Structures are given as C-alpha cells and as structure tokens.
C-alpha cells in the first residue's frame, strides 16, 4: 500500500504495542488522522511493573506510569471495539459508532486465563487488579498462588515481601519449563530460603462456591487460603475479530513485518509472528515494542519496510534476585561462565543451545542489554 492511500489509521488497544505503533507511525511521517481505542480508562502503563515494584513500592504508586503519549492521536479511552469489517474497512465500537480506516492496528493484547468463573479466583493482568491486590496484601492474608511460571513466582515473591505466608502450587518444579533446570534451580532455591512453600502437583483445579473457594490437587488434596491467586497463562483478546478470518487458533497470524493483510497490522500479545522456532506468540514487553515499530513502518512504507529482526529479551525479578536473558529459553544443560562462578553470587553465563543459537544470561549482574545481545552472536 502506498503512503498516499493512508489517510486514516485506527489503533485498537492502548497497551505498549498499540502505543508504540502509534508513536512510530508519526515518526515515519504519517500525518493523517490517528485514532486510538482502548477499553481501559487508564492511559497506557507498564504492565511488567504490576507484579514487581508496584506490589512492593510502599506508597509511591508510580512505578507503572509511562510518560504521556506524544503521537497526538484522538484517544477514545474506556471504549471497546466490538467488531471489524475488513471489506468496508470499519471498526465498530460499543458506543454504537464506527470508525472508518485505511490502515488498522490490532493491539488488544491478552487477558489472564482463569481456572474457574468464581469471583474469589484473583488474577493479575491490569492496573486495577494490581491495586486491588495491594490493598488486600496490606492485611497480610495467607496467599495461595497457582502457577509456577515467571508471573506466578513474581506474585508469590511480592506477597512474601509484603509479609504474607505464601504457598505456590506448580505443575512440576517452578520455572523449569520456562527457564530450564539450571536457572529454575537458582530461583526456587532463593524462594525456599525466603520462606515460600512450594507444592508440586499435576493439573490443579479451582473449585467451591463464591465466598468459599479452594484448590484441588490431582491427588485429591484440598488447599485453602485467604487470597487465592492464579497465574496460569494468557488468552489473546481476539473475540471481537470473529468472522473476519483473521484469527487462527485464537491468535492473529502475521508476516515478518507484522501485517495480517495489506492495511491490517497485528502487534503485541495477540499476534503470532514468524520466529526461528516457528510462527508463535511471544507475549513479552520488548517483543510488543519491536512488533509495534515494525508493523507501523510496514503500514507507512509497505514492502520497503524492513522485516522485524527479533531476538527475545526477557527479565524477571523475584526473591531478591534478578535475571536478564537474550536468546531462546528454556536453556537446557549447564552454562559456560563468562564472569562469576557457580554459586549464589552474580554471574554472566552463556548457553550453547541445540539449534546452534546462544542464550546469554545475566544473574544479579548489571550489563547493558546491547552487550548481552552481542554475546549471543559470538559462540560461547
């Protein structure tokens, strides 16, 4: 599509992916009509902060705030998109109006997967969830977290730091599926030292009735706590795209530039894009930013836009330890120590993965991400 045809762009979803796409459209010279629709009433904020500093931050309540947007778009906040008509090029909204477009950016992200429909099952996805959880933690309730992934572990860490007794229910050893056994061991050791109770199980269920919920483990054991939290993955918000043919297996598949079709970009947690390990969603912060930039360029410049060069960046902070990783995870086997040594101190490590790629990991170790990226380009 040529620049001439692009007069009106609608961005649906006001998270970091939509915001980055809107900013980039402007940087790339798009000066037409730009509209952003977002169903949260809050201006875009940092979601990763919700399970980290925001749960701890005594009182400042600012670790999630992002600087005000500078794209000058018309912002429709608190408004939900209910449908997309790709033939007539219209986005329909829940206030009964619709927005015509020449280019559209689908950026409605994802939501927490739940194990029940019970209101007592708490999940953490949005700012309102985080603020509500903070208020409850102030009373130091007992907490049961279901889910041994990075999010479940960060939440457990935050709850422990708030002074709550915390039990974490995990399928297998926490973090192993996401980080690999070595790094998982580092964090679960720190977690247990800080007093986290870890319960390993097969598939667990959340059951009961409003006001009295429990977790049932696969062996029949029943666990209860004052606060029951689950962190068991996310589901892309693609229901509003029903009937468009854009959704495959719940996500929106896109090409290497982030386009689902000419004039239709999809970015962030809802998009599945080509990676060296196949077409998949990579629901992470810097992935959302890379996708937002790349797709905006594709809308403005068409085939002249460069394909996205993607390399996963992941970080987590929990139980007093921090990790930054560039390259594919989980990391199998034992690392090569570039600096530091095995044990509990700071370390810079590299894994040579089976597919020939390198994963560079900094543990409690300050290092610029560009340097970590460079490490993955030279064999360990």
């Amino acid at each position, binding site marked *: 599509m040529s620049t001439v045809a692009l007069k009106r762009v609608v961005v649906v979803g006001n998270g970091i992916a939509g915001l980055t796409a809107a900013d980039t459209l402007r940087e790339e010279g798009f000066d037409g009509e730009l509209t952003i629709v977002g169903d949260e009433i809050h201006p875009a904020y940092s979601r990763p902060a919700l399970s980290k500093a925001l749960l701890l931050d005594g009182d400042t309540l600012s*670790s999630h705030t992002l600087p005000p947007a500078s794209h000058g778009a018309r912002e429709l906040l608190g408004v939900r998109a209910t449908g997309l008509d790709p033939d007539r090029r219209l986005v329909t909204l829940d206030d009964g109006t619709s927005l015509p477009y020449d280019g559209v950016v689908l950026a409605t992200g994802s939501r927490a997967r739940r194990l029940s429909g019970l209101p007592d099952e708490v999940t953490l996805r949005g700012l309102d969830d985080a603020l509500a959880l903070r208020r409850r933690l102030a009373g130091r309730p007992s907490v049961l977290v279901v889910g041994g992934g990075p999010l479940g572990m960060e939440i457990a860490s935050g709850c422990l730091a708030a002074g709550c007794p915390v039990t974490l229910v995990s399928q297998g050893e926490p973090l192993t599926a996401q980080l690999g056994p070595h790094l998982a061991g580092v964090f679960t050791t720190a977690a247990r030292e800080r007093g986290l109770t870890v319960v390993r199980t097969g598939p667990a269920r959340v059951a009961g009735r409003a006001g009295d919920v429990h977790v049932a483990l696969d062996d029949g054991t029943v666990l209860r706590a004052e606060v029951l939290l689950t962190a068991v993955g996310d589901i892309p918000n693609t229901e509003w795209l029903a009937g468009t043919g854009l959704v495959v297996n719940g996500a929106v598949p896109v090409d290497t530039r982030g386009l689902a079709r000419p004039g239709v970009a999809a970015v962030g947690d809802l998009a599945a894009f080509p990676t060296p390990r196949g077409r998949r969603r990579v629901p992470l912060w*810097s992935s959302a930013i890379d996708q937002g930039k790349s797709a905006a360029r594709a809308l403005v410049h068409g085939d002249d836009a460069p394909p996205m060069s993607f390399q996963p960046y992941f970080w987590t902070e929990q139980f007093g330890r921090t990790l930054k990783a560039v390259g594919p995870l989980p990391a199998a086997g034992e690392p090569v120590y570039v600096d530091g040594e095995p044990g509990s101190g700071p370390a810079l490590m590299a894994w040579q993965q089976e597919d020939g790629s390198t994963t560079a990991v900094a543990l409690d170790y300050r290092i610029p991400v560009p340097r970590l990226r460079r490490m993955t380009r030279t064999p360990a």
Partner: protein
Amino acid sequence: MKIVLDRPRCEGHGLCEEAAPQLMHLDDDGELVLDLEEIDGGDVALAKAAARVCPVAALRVQ
C-alpha cells in the same frame, strides 16, 4: 526540556538506549549515562520514545 533519570529505579535494561542511542548509553558497568540532558527540537520526541519503552519508568522528560 530536560531528561531526568531516577537512578535508583533504573535497572539497566538499556531498552531506552535502543530507542534513543543519540541521547543516552549504558556504560560498561551497566550504568545509564545521559549524553544530553537539556534537549529541544527533534530530540524531545526521541527522549519521550526512550522514556516510554523503559519498563520501570525510570526516565522522565519535563
């Protein structure tokens, strides 16, 4: 305008540097260095883009 870094909050992710390498970089110890603090013109948009990508909101443009 001015770029302000909340240093204790900065975790050295360096995502800001990737957004605005003209204005800031991480030194070898992973400490963020602002190469330019007083900014105007096109640099303001760049600085804001850098502040936006920081996942811990350690940068402000004011």
